[in-house]
């Protein structure tokens, strides 16, 4: 286990493995995406209250889940950076931030587009929406802080602390619809009893969520490969890489 951890953590090894995995991850993502979209847009029946407008759920909810998941992963990387000073965790943390910010933006934007016909307004300052907006600022803060510090090792530690502190926002987002009165509807899937959503809608929703996870993995790997090359441009393995043409 530790040997694997060590090997996976080494930059040239990760660079190679990530390059090999990207086509497979892309293929899985595309398969899940098309089946999820087909199930969500064609097979699933219209909602009895919201008509066809509810179909935004198939991107809104998975995007919102991803925004939380990626942040938790970043905070986990933050702990690894502080405790073990692992270089790969630094790369993963900083490469995750733009992807997480994108998903947060999508969750907010699609929610807003959904809110207009259903609530009659693009935006309300309620707990769920506000805490998700704070999450977007946390992501942007991570990116900004990392860009502001020239020494990338110091930048990584600063960003790690920000990521760890910001994680308090995650349970606030999740429970916001239960703790405060909100226009936003309560959870329909992550309830302990039976989810209050029909399986013909639930299955495409889960497929889309899975598709987004594969998408995250593949773009993360792509970003990490670039970042690793940039950071280690003077190392032996990058030198050897630029000698050969097999990249």
């Amino acid at each position, binding site marked *: 286990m530790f040997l694997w951890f060590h090997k996976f953590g080494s930059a040239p090894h990760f660079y190679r493995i990530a390059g090999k995995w990207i086509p497979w991850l892309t293929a899985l993502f595309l398969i899940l995406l098309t089946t999820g979209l087909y199930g969500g847009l064609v097979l699933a029946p219209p909602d009895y209250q919201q008509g066809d407008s509810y179909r935004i759920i198939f991107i*809104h909810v998975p995007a919102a889940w991803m925004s939380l998941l990626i942040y938790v992963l970043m905070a986990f990387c933050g702990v690894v950076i502080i405790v073990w000073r692992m270089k790969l965790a630094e790369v993963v943390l900083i490469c995750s931030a733009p992807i997480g910010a994108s998903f947060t*933006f999508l969750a907010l*934007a699609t929610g807003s587009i959904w809110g207009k016909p259903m609530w009659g307004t693009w935006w309300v300052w309620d707990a769920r929406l506000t805490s998700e907006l704070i999450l977007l600022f946390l992501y942007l803060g991570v990116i900004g802080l990392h860009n502001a510090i020239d020494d990338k090792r110091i930048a990584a530690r600063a960003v790690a602390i920000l990521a760890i502190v910001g994680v308090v926002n995650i349970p606030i987002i999740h429970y916001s619809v239960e703790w405060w009165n909100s226009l936003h509807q309560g959870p329909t899937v992550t309830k302990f009893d039976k989810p209050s959503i029909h399986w013909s809608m639930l299955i495409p929703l889960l497929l889309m969520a899975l598709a987004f996870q594969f998408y995250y993995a593949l773009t993360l790997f792509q970003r990490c490969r670039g970042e690793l*090359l940039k950071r280690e441009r003077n190392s032996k393995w990058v030198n050897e890489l630029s000698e050969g043409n097999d990249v």
Partner: protein
Amino acid sequence: MSEFFAMGGYASYVWSSYGLTAIVLCLNWYLPRRTHQQILRQLKRRHSKQSSLDRKK
């Protein structure tokens, strides 16, 4: 088919959400790829410059 695109009267909301998502996901896929290619090209150039300098010595 046109019924499918009409989305029960919510076409503009549904399709703008999906369109926006498609744009953001494509950009997130394309931009890191381009950066990666640029870095590789830079490294290659630096490397060939280095080896031609070595030959002159």
